[in-house]
């Protein structure tokens, strides 16, 4: 089966949608002391980290969200698994409102938690340094009361084997393992309760390329074997190519382009997506200077008017400075850009 066939193997219909974000938004207040505010007469300041984000992920597929630091991708990941509370909108797993369920009766909340798990960026910070590896991997199973303590060693060994860590000493501590091994341990912990939905927040960005290749391949294998539905967060468009079925590009809290992987890489629509692709270093060597990229991500405390990307956009005109573009469908692709809509591209 070719890549393209696999990407479109399962058509997105309502029946297969497991994960959904509906108009998700998260605003953080900056807590300036009230005396300072009084003296300087400042209004309370707010950062809109995630702004009106909607998407669906069909069962067994992977959606990757890509963007520069500060674009709100990690906040979005945390909202999807209920680690943070949205200020607008809601996250859904299999027609269950994540936030409402976690706030509700304990049993229902625990049942929902079993079904969604997360892998974090830093394998040095996300594993408790005082716990033995065996205890770390067994913890979700015991917490969920899926096994008895006596059954733990066998299950832990099986889980570690499934992430390529056969025969390691489970009485060792995280610091006795390398970064790649630690990220495998994080993965073993995440798949312990057989979740349906896995969120990976930059799982390989702290790893070396050769180790990154091992972990990415493992992730793809696990996803296929277990029919996991994945949300994969990354700042690296190239990495996403190897794991995602669909790709969303985020800029300053909003999704600006959402497309099947093949489409996005073959024909990027949004000027920001094009800029990100042009900025990818080319191994075919020097001579090709990377397209000069204009400016940096603006301060989220004072976002630009209209389209947030307009100060860096070569195609910006008066309308872009005033009116914020909505995410519009164009075939299988959704883009939020006036230039694309008007055919100025």
């Amino acid at each position, binding site marked *: 089966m070719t*890549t393209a066939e696999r990407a479109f193997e399962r058509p997105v219909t309502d029946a297969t949608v497991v994960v959904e974000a509906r108009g998700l938004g998260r605003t953080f207040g900056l807590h300036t002391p009230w005396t300072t505010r009084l003296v300087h007469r400042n209004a309370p300041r707010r950062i809109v980290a995630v702004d009106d984000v909607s998407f669906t992920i069909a069962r067994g597929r992977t959606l990757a969200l890509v963007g*520069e*630091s500060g674009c709100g991708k990690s906040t979005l990941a945390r909202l999807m698994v209920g680690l943070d509370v949205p200020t607008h909108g809601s996250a859904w797993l299999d027609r269950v409102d994540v936030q409402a369920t976690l706030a509700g009766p304990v049993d229902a909340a625990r049942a929902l938690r079993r079904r969604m798990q997360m892998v974090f960026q830093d394998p040095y910070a996300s594993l408790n340094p005082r716990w033995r590896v065996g205890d770390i991997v067994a913890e979700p199973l015991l917490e969920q009361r899926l096994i008895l303590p006596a059954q733990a060693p066998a299950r832990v060994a099986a889980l570690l084997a499934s992430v390529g860590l056969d025969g390691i000493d489970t009485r060792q501590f995280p610091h006795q393992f*390398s*970064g*790649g*091994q630690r990220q495998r341990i994080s993965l073993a912990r995440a798949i312990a309760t057989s979740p349906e939905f896995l969120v990976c927040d930059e799982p390989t960005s702290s790893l*070396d*390329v*050769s*180790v*990154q*290749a*091992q972990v*990415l*391949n493992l992730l*793809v294998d696990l996803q296929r074997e277990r029919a996991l539905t994945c949300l994969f967060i990354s*700042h*690296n*468009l*190239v*990495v996403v*190519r*190897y794991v995602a079925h669909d790709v969303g590009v985020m800029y300053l809290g909003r999704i600006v382009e959402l497309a099947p992987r093949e489409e996005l*890489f073959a024909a990027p629509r949004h000027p920001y997506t094009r*800029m*990100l*692709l042009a*900025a*990818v*270093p*080319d*191994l*075919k*060597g*020097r001579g*090709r*200077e*990377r*397209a*000069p*990229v204009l400016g*940096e*991500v603006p301060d989220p405390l004072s976002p630009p008017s209209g389209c947030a990307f307009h100060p860096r956009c070569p195609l910006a005109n008066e309308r872009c400075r005033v009116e914020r573009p909505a995410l519009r469908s164009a075939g299988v692709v959704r883009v939020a850009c006036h230039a694309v809509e008007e055919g100025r591209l």
Partner: protein
Amino acid sequence: MSGPLLEVRDLCVEFPTRHGPLRALDGVSFDIAPGEILGVVGESGAGKSLTGAAVIGLLEPPGRVCRGQVLLEGSRIDDLPREAMRRLQGRRIGAIFQDPLTSLDPLYTVGHQLVETLRAHFALGTSQAREQAVELLRQTGIPAPEARLAQYPHEFSGGMRQRVVIALALAAKPALVIADEPTTALDVAVQAQILQLLRGVTQARGAAVMLITHDMGVVAETCDRVAVMYAGRVVEIGPVDEVLQRPAHPYTVGLMASVPSLHDARDRLAQIPGALPRLGEIPAGCAFHPRCPKASPRCREERPELALVRRTRAACWWPMVEGFAAP
């Protein structure tokens, strides 16, 4: 001046432990010519940063250089007394580190730090130093440099901060610049800007640069030559296009194949089995042999030295010689 600006000869670094010394760098040799950028790549723990620190005399004790020489413009600098070395650092050697926020003092304005640096190295009045500071910021592409002088590091974005760090490193017009992962903390878009800047300003001044990175893409578009390190040794060194397109050492081949690419026909990344050995457990013979697809009995016993393969030099008994197509 003819000949290399920096010569590193058979450099070894050891860390004493209770169980005897651990050798972290073992016989590292390379040259950098004036105006040349040498990339040093390898996985974390391969000894890249340690090489940089040893060259500029910033090894953290208890690590120590136990053998070898470092020559800057023909004279040894590895055995200089502390005070002489300190004068050399900053004046003849500039350093740029990964995290711009920790390289700048948060309590002083950017202007203060630049003026201070300039006056430490040159006999300048405050106003002259200020003018030069403005000029430095302008050269590193910071808009409105006069206004920026009065600002503190936290008022700069990540990319702008790294520009300030580059301006500081170049303030004393050093002959050698050591850049240790200068763009790792930055977004790809900003990374491209900073690399172009680094290349531009160092070439304009004819400074030699040692660029330490784990990112092959950074090497591909910035460096003239590249040294690949594995387990404390240089396993391959040569011109960038040769090493990246037609690598001779199996480790470089594996490393190149595991780099994700936009124009990759494959659906899956190639991976090198296993992991970098720990310092105390470096295998005998060729350190890469347990992970190498071409390992032979000879590789397990005898350690290969760097030898010419086409236009690159590789430390391997069975280098990729002919008919190898880069991934």
